[in-house]
């Protein structure tokens, strides 16, 4: 038997926990994306600075999850932290960011 299979047999990956972690991360991303949209709209950011704002802040959120929530050891919670924590879901949170951004941009800028 291969060493990785042996390792997996000894320390199994529980599917339920993996899904729970993924869901928590996705929820966090969505909520913060909406709030960042509010901020961007209120600040009156336009096209490129607006998306840059989103990119920077979502990296900030990932860093916060990495250092504060996962105590600097994300491999305990995620199977492949690089792929899931840093480069995870983009389309869902981006669309809610754009939604609240447009809403508040229209509201505030009048």
């Amino acid at each position, binding site marked *: 038997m291969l060493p990785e299979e042996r390792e997996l*047999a*000894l320390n199994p990956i529980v599917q339920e926990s993996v899904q729970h972690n993924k869901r928590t991360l*996705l929820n966090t991303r969505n909520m913060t994306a909406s709030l960042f949209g509010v901020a961007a709209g209120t600040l009156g950011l336009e096209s490129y600075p607006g998306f840059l704002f989103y990119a920077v802040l979502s990296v900030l959120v990932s860093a916060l999850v990495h250092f504060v929530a996962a105590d600097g050891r994300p491999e305990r919670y995620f199977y492949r932290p690089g792929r899931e924590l840093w480069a995870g879901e983009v389309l869902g949170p981006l669309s809610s960011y754009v939604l609240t951004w447009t809403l508040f941009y229209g509201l505030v800028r009048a």
Partner: protein
Amino acid sequence: MAPPVAQTIHRDPALFYWILLPITVVMIFTGILRHYAQTLLQSGPKKQPVRLLRQQRSLMRGVNLRTNANVLSPSSFQTRKAYLVSAFQDGAFLADPENRGKPRGNPMSDPAMMEGMMGGMKANVAMMVPQTLIMGWINAFFSGFVISAFAPARLVKLPFPLTPQFKSMLQSGVGTRDLDVRWVSSMSWYFLTLFGLQPVYTFILGNNNAASQVTQQMAQMNPGAGMMGPDQDPDKLFLSEAENLEVVEHRWILDGVEDRLLARSK
């Protein structure tokens, strides 16, 4: 062409309350409605005869034994394996022992398959119909702002620029032609909310909700998760499973556990 001037148009604030908010509220509620409608419309699992169930479950038992073999002690694993292999080869779990050697009948004549396919199509219809309804409604009510009571003709300014090709789609119902693309009509607000509210649905309805578009598309791609059994000859399935069981190499995970425990507590 003249350089595009920054166009700021004075907008009646009442416009905002009467259009943006109703559309958003309606979309949230129809999403929730769609979720509950689909949950209620779902027919439960069909009651199957005992022999069919036993056939399917015993096959699953063989697969489970193979997957989790290493958790069992060697003697326990060997006992189960011997029993299952002999039972599979004798066809003790078959639903239809007389039809053992014959080829399978036409799948379309099997009523169980039709039920499965109809269930999938019902889900699709339940998703498409409300969307088209809402689009039609919005088109009817919220179009043609130039002639409406509110002075300005457009709704919301998009914070980011789009190519001119989007103009015809997003500014339907607005009279002027050379309006900057960034000013969009209510139809585009509909599209924005369509995509942007999916995280909200996930948050409100929990995962596995029927209002989220992404899960819909994924469900369309896995239609036959439970329908593989009747398609293939169960006898062949049993025999192949018996062969797979024979070749399993058993490495008990408690092998050497004393060393691992001591190493960890060092």
